[in-house]
């Protein structure tokens, strides 16, 4: 005598037949799972998309700009710029030096203004670290610097002040009694805004033609992401090795920790929403399956009388709840995908599809179904058929 067996295919067919016998209940139970699974997937998908957007914002605003100057308002040796540039983690740097008492006026622009703008010298390529793109024209370079060319670059606010809006080779500014051709107008700076108010001339020209010595020099340094704080600590030593205490370095707060915090919070939010959703779906299945067990006592007793073992009874209810979970998972994944596409389109977020979750929707549903169906299945397997058939239950 061998132990009774039921083929797994027969078990699935029996489960499908039993579920199909109560279509309204099946739809309602599946709806519960759909809500659970889709909420998990939508939460995951939205979090992934929002996370991408939020972290991109962090990247843009990461602590990557360091500004350093002497605490006493003194000058910095141009060689300080080379030393700072050699620091590991520095992407680019520029040196801007004030020229006290020197101002610029317009000599040839149409509708020339009598207003005066502050003049400073800067190292070639200074606009990049300041985050000031060229609006029109071309900034001076190392060649202009060496030759002491009579050229000037005008910051965005200074251009407005002086009424300069084009660079055509005829627009000049008058500085120290000499006319310098405006070769570029800058856009507003994103990293070091004081440059907007300045008219910048090559230091070689300033040295040759102005009696005023540079002072209040400022180093504007752009670092690699997350290196701002470290560079901020190293800059004083690099800029003035003999007297680093005289240099004040202003590094923005390091946001890398907050970036991790935000990512962790988003993940935690996803987990919480996901768990709540899945618990809701699981409760729907568990409740319905448990009710079904008590409604089908006579059927359970009959199957036991026909030779079903306790395991076979438990298996049937477990498979029924697993199938319910698979259906709910599949439909939930489809709905979640649709909602994600719409939500990301509305919010303008990048659509970051959590592929494993979408594909795994039915798998997750099956898992929820099995877990939720375990207790009712066990309960069904413990029902004594004799009691049912005797009518004492």
């Amino acid at each position, binding site marked *: 005598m061998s*132990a*009774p067996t039921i083929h797994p295919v027969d078990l699935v067919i029996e489960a499908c037949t039993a579920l199909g016998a109560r279509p309204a209940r099946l739809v309602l139970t599946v709806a519960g799972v759909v809500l659970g699974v889709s909420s998990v997937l939508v939460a995951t998908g939205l979090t992934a998309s929002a996370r991408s957007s939020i972290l991109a914002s962090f990247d843009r605003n990461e602590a990557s700009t360091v500004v350093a100057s002497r605490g006493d308002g003194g000058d910095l040796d141009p060689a300080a710029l080379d030393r700072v540039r050699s620091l590991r983690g520095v992407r680019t740097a520029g040196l801007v030096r004030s020229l006290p008492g020197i101002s610029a006026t317009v000599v040839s622009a149409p509708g020339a203004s009598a207003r005066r703008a502050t003049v400073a010298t800067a190292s070639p390529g200074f606009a990049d670290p300041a985050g000031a793109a060229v609006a029109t024209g071309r900034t001076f370079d190392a060649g202009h610097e060496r030759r002491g060319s009579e050229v000037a670059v005008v910051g965005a606010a200074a251009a407005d002040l002086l009424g300069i809006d084009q660079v055509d080779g005829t627009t000049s500014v008058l500085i120290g009694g000499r006319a310098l051709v405006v070769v570029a107008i800058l856009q507003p700076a994103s990293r070091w805004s004081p440059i907007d108010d300045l008219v910048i001339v090559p230091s070689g020209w300033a040295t040759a033609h102005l009696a005023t010595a540079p002072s209040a020099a400022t180093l504007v340094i752009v670092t690699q992401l997350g290196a701002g704080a470290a560079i901020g600590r190293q800059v004083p030593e690099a800029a003035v090795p003999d007297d680093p205490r005289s240099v004040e370095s202003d590094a923005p707060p390091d946001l890398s920790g907050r970036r991790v915090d935000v990512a962790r919070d988003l993940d935690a939010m996803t987990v919480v929403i996901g768990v709540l959703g899945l618990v809701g779906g699981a409760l729907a299945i568990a409740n319905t399956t448990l009710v079904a067990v008590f409604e089908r006592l006579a059927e359970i*007793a009959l199957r036991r*009388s026909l*030779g079903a*073992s*306790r395991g*076979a009874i438990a298996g049937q209810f477990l498979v029924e709840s697993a199938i319910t979970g698979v259906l709910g998972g599949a439909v939930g994944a489809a709905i979640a995908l649709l909602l994600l596409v719409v939500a990301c389109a509305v919010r303008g977020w990048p659509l970051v599809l959590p592929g494993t979750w979408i594909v795994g929707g039915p798998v997750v549903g099956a898992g929820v179904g099995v877990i939720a169906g375990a207790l009712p299945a066990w309960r069904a397997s413990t029902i004594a*058929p004799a009691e049912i058939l*005797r009518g004492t239950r």
Partner: protein
Amino acid sequence: MSDQAAPVIALRGVGRCHAGPPTVDALIDVDLEVAPGELVAVTGPSGAGKSTLLQILGLLDRPTDGSYTFEGIDTRMLDGRRHAALRATRIGFVFQSFHLLPHLDVVGNVELGLLYAGCARRHRRERALAVLDDLGVGEVGSAPAAVLSGGEQQRVAIARAIVREPALLLCDEPTGNLDQRSGARVLDLLDQLNERGATIVIATHDPDVAARATRCVQVRDGRIAGAPS
């Protein structure tokens, strides 16, 4: 009882006490043997212990005292899976309330009788259709079980019970929910099965049913009538 053949059923001092409170002694010190091919009627008033006796005979319940030997196997030595195996292959049940599954058609209900016996799906259908034809209800094979008359439902239930050709057919008030004519047809059917060699035990308090049996066993207050109390 045949003197030659080994009994299909042998109960020795079987008792069944239902846990309370209050505790109920449904069966007390029951000795019973049933030989192959017998048609035994178990009679007695409601609550006498007939159904409990049938459930013990059908391995749906276990005695709290005594021993039960089925086809030479001491059932006390078997675990639940082995009991299920015997029910799936050697024992058939017919219930007063038919217990057909309403979401299945007639053939599907009869196929259930083979589901747990390890029979392949294709063979289940063939055998179910053959038995239904044999019992004269083949023409309703595709009908939902719920639309059949009481007599037809009971014949389908009998088909489900005998489709696996059990050694023992246990019938609990098989005519209890039927009118006289339908009941008589069901009893004729059981007679035919018995004539073909089926061993049948029927629990009933219907004297017409008892009159058809080859032997009648009376149960009163959990004891076999005539047995020493």
